C-alpha cells in the first residue's frame, strides 16, 4: 500500500501553523500574561507596579469571602449539573415515548435553548423580582418571603433555578438523539427479557447513554462554572452586596470593575488550575466506567 507523503518535511508543520497560531494567540499568550500579572500589583493605566511574589495568591486564599464564593460555586455547579441533566433526561425519555404530537413536544422543550443567557437572566430577574415577580408572589402564597438581593439563600435559589432551567433543553436535545440512536433490536430484546420498564431503563438504556451522559457532564460543569456569568450578573443587578456569586463573577468584579489586575489574575490562575484538575479527574475516574461501544 502506498503511503501518502508530503514532499517537504516542513509541509505538515506549515499546515499545522494556523491552528497553533490561534491556540498561541488566544490561549497560551493570555494564560502566560495572567500568570505574569498574578505576581504584581499594577497600576491599570501604565501596567507598572510592584512585584509582590505570591502575595496575591495568599491574599485570595486566606480571604473568607473568597472561600464563601468557592463553596457556593461548588454547590451551585453540582446542583445545576444534576438538576439539568436529570430533568433533561426525564424529558427526553418522556418525549421519546410520546407517539402523537412528538414534534410539538420537542419544539416546546427545545426553544428555551434559543434564548441567549443574558435574556434568560433578565427573564429570571423579572420572575423573581421583589416587587412584580410572579414567583415571588407564589412563594409568598406558601408563606416564604422570597427576597432576591436581600437574603443570601433566596438569591442562591433563584440563581440556581434560572441557570439550571437554561441548560435543560440543551441536555434534552442530546439525550433525545442518543435515545433515538439506540437500535430498536436492542430495545425489543430487552422487552422480551424483562417486563419492568424502569429496570429495563437502568440496566439497558442508561448504560447505553453513558458516553453521552459523560460528555454532557463535562459540558454542563463548564457551563455552570463559566457560562452562567451573564445570569449571575443580571440576577444581582450589578451589586453583589451580600448575594452569592460564582468565582468567575468575582474575577470579573475585582478585575474589570475594581481594576485590581493582580488580584484578579491570581484568581484566574487558580480557576485555570481547578479546571485542569477537574478535567483530568473526570477523565481518569469516570471515563473508565464509560463504554463507548
Amino acid at each position, binding site marked *: 500500500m502506498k503511503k501518502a507523503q508530503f514532499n517537504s518535511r516542513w509541509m505538515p508543520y506549515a499546515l499545522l501553523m494556523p491552528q497553533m497560531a490561534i491556540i498561541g494567540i488566544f490561549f497560551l499568550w493570555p494564560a502566560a500574561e495572567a500568570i505574569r500579572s498574578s505576581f504584581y500589583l499594577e497600576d491599570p493605566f501604565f501596567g507598572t507596579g*510592584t512585584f509582590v511574589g505570591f502575595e496575591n495568591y495568599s491574599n485570595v486564599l486566606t480571604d473568607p*469571602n473568597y472561600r464563601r464564593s468557592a463553596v457556593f460555586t461548588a454547590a451551585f455547579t453540582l446542583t445545576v449539573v444534576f438538576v439539568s441533566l436529570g430533568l433533561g433526561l426525564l424529558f427526553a425519555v418522556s418525549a421519546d415515548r410520546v407517539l402523537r404530537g412528538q414534534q410539538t413536544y420537542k419544539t416546546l422543550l427545545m426553544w428555551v435553548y434559543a434564548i441567549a443567557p443574558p435574556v434568560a437572566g433578565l427573564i429570571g430577574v423579572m420572575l423573581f423580582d421583589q416587587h412584580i415577580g410572579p414567583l415571588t408572589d407564589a412563594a409568598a402564597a406558601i408563606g416564604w418571603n422570597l427576597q432576591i438581593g436581600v437574603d443570601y439563600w433566596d438569591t442562591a435559589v433563584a440563581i440556581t433555578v434560572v441557570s439550571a432551567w437554561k441548560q435543560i433543553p440543551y441536555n434534552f436535545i442530546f439525550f433525545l438523539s442518543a435515545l433515538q440512536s439506540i437500535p430498536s433490536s436492542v430495545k425489543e430484546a430487552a422487552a422480551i427479557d424483562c417486563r419492568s420498564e424502569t429496570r429495563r431503563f437502568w440496566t439497558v438504556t442508561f448504560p447505553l447513554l453513558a458516553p453521552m451522559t459523560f460528555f454532557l457532564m463535562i459540558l454542563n460543569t463548564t457551563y455552570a462554572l463559566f457560562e452562567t456569568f451573564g445570569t449571575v450578573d443580571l440576577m444581582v*443587578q*450589578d451589586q453583589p452586596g451580600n448575594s452569592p456569586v460564582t468565582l468567575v463573577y468575582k474575577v470579573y468584579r475585582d478585575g474589570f470593575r475594581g481594576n485590581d489586575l493582580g488580584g484578579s489574575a491570581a484568581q484566574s490562575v487558580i480557576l485555570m488550575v481547578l479546571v485542569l484538575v477537574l478535567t483530568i479527574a473526570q477523565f481518569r475516574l469516570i471515563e473508565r466506567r464509560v463504554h463507548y461501544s
Partner: protein
Amino acid sequence: MLRNTILAATGAAMTAFAAHAEPVEITWWHAMGGQLGETVNEIAKGFNESQDAYQITPVYKGGYEDTLTATIAAFRAGEQPNVVQVFDAGAATIIGAKGAVVPAEDLIQEAGVAFDANDYIDGVRYFYADSDGKMIGMPFNSSTPILYYNVEALEAAGVEPPKTWEEFEAIAPQIKEAGYTPLAQSHLPWIFTENFMSRHNIPFATNANGFEGVAGTEILPETAAIEAHFDKLAAWNEAGLFGFYGAAWGANQTPFENGEVAMWLGSSGSFGGLRNAVDFPFSATYLPYWEGVTESPTNTFIGGAALFAMAGHPEEENTATAEFFKYLSSPDVQLMWHQQTGYVPITKAAYEKAQEIGYYDEVPQAEVGIQQLSLPGGAWSKGYRMGFYVQIRDVMNREYAQVINGEKSAAEAFEVIKAEGNKLLDRFAKTMN
C-alpha cells in the same frame, strides 16, 4: 525677509482655512444612558453648533465601571478618547495614575481660556481636586443624597418631614400606622457612610480622607457614631420602620414610586426621573443627621461623575477640550442640564441664573440638593480619595446587608470593613509605584 513673511502669511491663511474647513475633532466617552444620554447629545450638539473650529462626538460606553475599564484598555492601546466621564468611586484610580490625565485647571489655562476655581460651588470644586485644591477633573453630573417624601403619606400620618434622625424615630411609628413603610434608601455606602461622615463632619479616612496620599491611609478611624446608626437601622428594619430591598439602586426606589414607602433617600439627580414616574405629590428635604452626634451639621459632598481630559493628545485637541469645558460650565448649559436632569448646577453663576428665572419657585424640590451642598463645610466634608474603592463599597454592601438582616452587630461588621478596607488600601498603594 519678505519671502518669509509671505510664507508665514500663507501658512497662517492655510491654517485658518484648514481650521475652517476641517474642525478639530475630539471624542467624549460617557456613561449616561437613556434620557440622560439624550441630554448629553444635546449638549454636544449645542457645542458643535456654537462654533465651527471644533467638533465633539459623544460616545456612550455603558455604566460608570464599563466606561472606566474601556478607557483603561484604550489608554494602554494608545487610543484613549479626549474626554472621559469617571465616577466618584473611580476618581482615585484615574487621578492616581500620574500622567494619564491632564488636570482640567492646567488644560484650561494652557489653552488661554479664562478660569477661576472660585466660580464653582464649594461642595463641588474640592471633590475632584488634588490636595492643593487644584481641579483635576471637571465636575459634570453632580448630585448629592437628599430625602424625598410622599406628601400625602406624611399628611395621612399627620407628621412633618424629619430634620434629624431623632425626629424620624419619633414619627416613624405614626407613618407605619398610616399604612406605609416609613423609610428606604438606595445606596448604603454613599448615603449612610460617605455622606453620613460628611454630614456629621467625622473623619472618613486618615490622611485628610485620603487626599494627602495613598500610603498609610486608613479607613473609618472613628466608628462610634456610624455603628450606632447601623444598629438603629437594624432595629428599625426589625420593627418595620425601615425597608431594605438589597444593594441595587432601583429595587429600593421602586417601592417609593409605588407609594409603599413614605420617605426615600436618593440622589438629587433622581428628581427628573421621579417627576415622570410618580403620580402623587412629593417633595424633598435635607439628609437628616443625628442631633446627638452634632448640633451643627455640615454639607454633604457630591456624588456622580466628572469629566477628565486624557493625556497624549495634540495641543489643538487639548484646546478643543478646554473650549468644551468652558462651554459646559457656561450658565446656560448648566441651567439646561440642571433643569432637564435634576443634577445640581456646578457654578455659582448657573445657580443664580436658576434663581433669577424663578425655577425654584416653580419646583422648590430641585433646589434642595444645591442648598445642601452649599451648607457650611468642615474639615472632613470636602470629599474622599481612596483606591480600590469599588471593592471597598462591595465589602460595605455585603456587611451592611448582614447587619440589617440581623446576622451580625454593627460593631462586628465595622471590624470587618476596616480590616478588609485597609488591606485594599494597602494593596492599592502598591500599584502606585
